[in-house]
């Protein structure tokens, strides 16, 4: 077994669970996350350069984020599994509440997928993986201040994307009402 393979196995033992959780959060499906997890490690192995990367964990995390959003792009209308998503206190546990919540999750993730690659990675690391600005800065090779600014800009961009989605859907509903 080569040193690269050993390093990948160590990565799996060290960060496998965390990577799988990240993939589950970004796909909202455990089965897809399982497949993407395998794809991720095959990709890391074939890349070869993964072993030479300064921070293999950060490299794998970024690759996982990109894989998940690639999957989302090719399968926008994936069926959701709601069971593993933590329910916020404000929303009830009724089926309608779950449906609304899951729709919101999908909408938010699709909006994140429309951001630029760097902004998307930072946003995921900060708000979905709940990492500190310093950690993100270390992984991305930026300063903490830059990361903070990127997060702020990403949230604003996200708000614009989601806002325009809402406006479009509202306009569609008004048009439907008028047609009736």
């Amino acid at each position, binding site marked *: *077994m*080569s040193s690269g*393979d050993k390093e*990948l*196995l160590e990565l*799996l033992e060290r960060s*496998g*669970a965390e990577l*799988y*959780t990240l993939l*589950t*959060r970004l796909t*909202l499906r*455990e089965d897809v*996350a*399982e497949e993407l*997890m*395998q794809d991720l*490690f*095959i990709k890391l*192995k074939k890349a070869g350069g993964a072993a030479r990367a300064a921070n293999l964990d950060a490299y794998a995390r970024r690759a996982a984020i990109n894989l998940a959003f690639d999957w989302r792009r090719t399968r926008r209308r994936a069926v959701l599994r709601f069971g*593993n*998503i*933590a*329910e*916020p206190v404000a929303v009830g546990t009724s089926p309608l509440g779950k449906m609304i*919540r899951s729709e*919101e*999750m999908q909408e*938010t*993730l699709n909006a994140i997928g429309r951001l630029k690659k760097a902004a998307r990675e930072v*946003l995921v690391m900060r*708000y*979905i*993986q*709940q990492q500190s600005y310093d950690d993100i800065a270390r992984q991305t090779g930026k300063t903490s201040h830059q990361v903070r600014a990127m997060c702020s800009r990403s*949230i*604003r961009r*996200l*708000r*614009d994307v*989601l*806002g*325009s989605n*809402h*406006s479009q859907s*509202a306009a569609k509903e008004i048009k439907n009402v008028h047609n009736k």
Partner: protein
Amino acid sequence: MSTINEDRIRERLEALSKAEPAKEATDRAMEKVRDVLKAENEASPKHSLRLPPANGGASPTLRLMKLAAAAVLMIGLGYLGGRLSAPKPLDAEQLRAEIESSIRASLEPAIRQDLIEEMDARRDSAFAAGSAELKEEFQQKVRRDLVDFAEQTLAYADDRMDRRLADLARQFYAARVQDRQRTAEGFQYLESNIGSGLVALAARANELMSTQ
């Protein structure tokens, strides 16, 4: 224009951050990754058998000499093969015999087959004609036999019927005679009994009349 604020977005992101896969699913996923990595290692060309280099590390001069020797060998083999496979001068008698045998070999089966087919056809037609005559003769024979049988049967039946009728007439006559005898006997009895009764009745009537 925006109907969603940043707090709401952060709330959604926080909800996403709380999504956790099941422990079993995580273990299963990691196990599958281990299997995949293991399989990739086993399928890796690093572990496959490799053939030694074709030139075996020989020097260019030696390699050139080997190539020259191989070329000479190939040319020699080609010449030898050409000599051995060259056509011999033609022999007219042998050629005629070969052509004859070849034609015979090619025509004989066809002729044989034609003959067999013609013989089959003739046999079939002869059999068909003979079969028609036999059939006619057989029908006539059967017809004659049937007529004879019918005549014999009718004669036998007539004889049997005559005898039965004669027996019946005899029995009928005997029964009739017997019946007449019994009737006569009955009349005689009646005559004797009625006569004495009438005498007694007349005597009684005479007595009664005399007393009155």
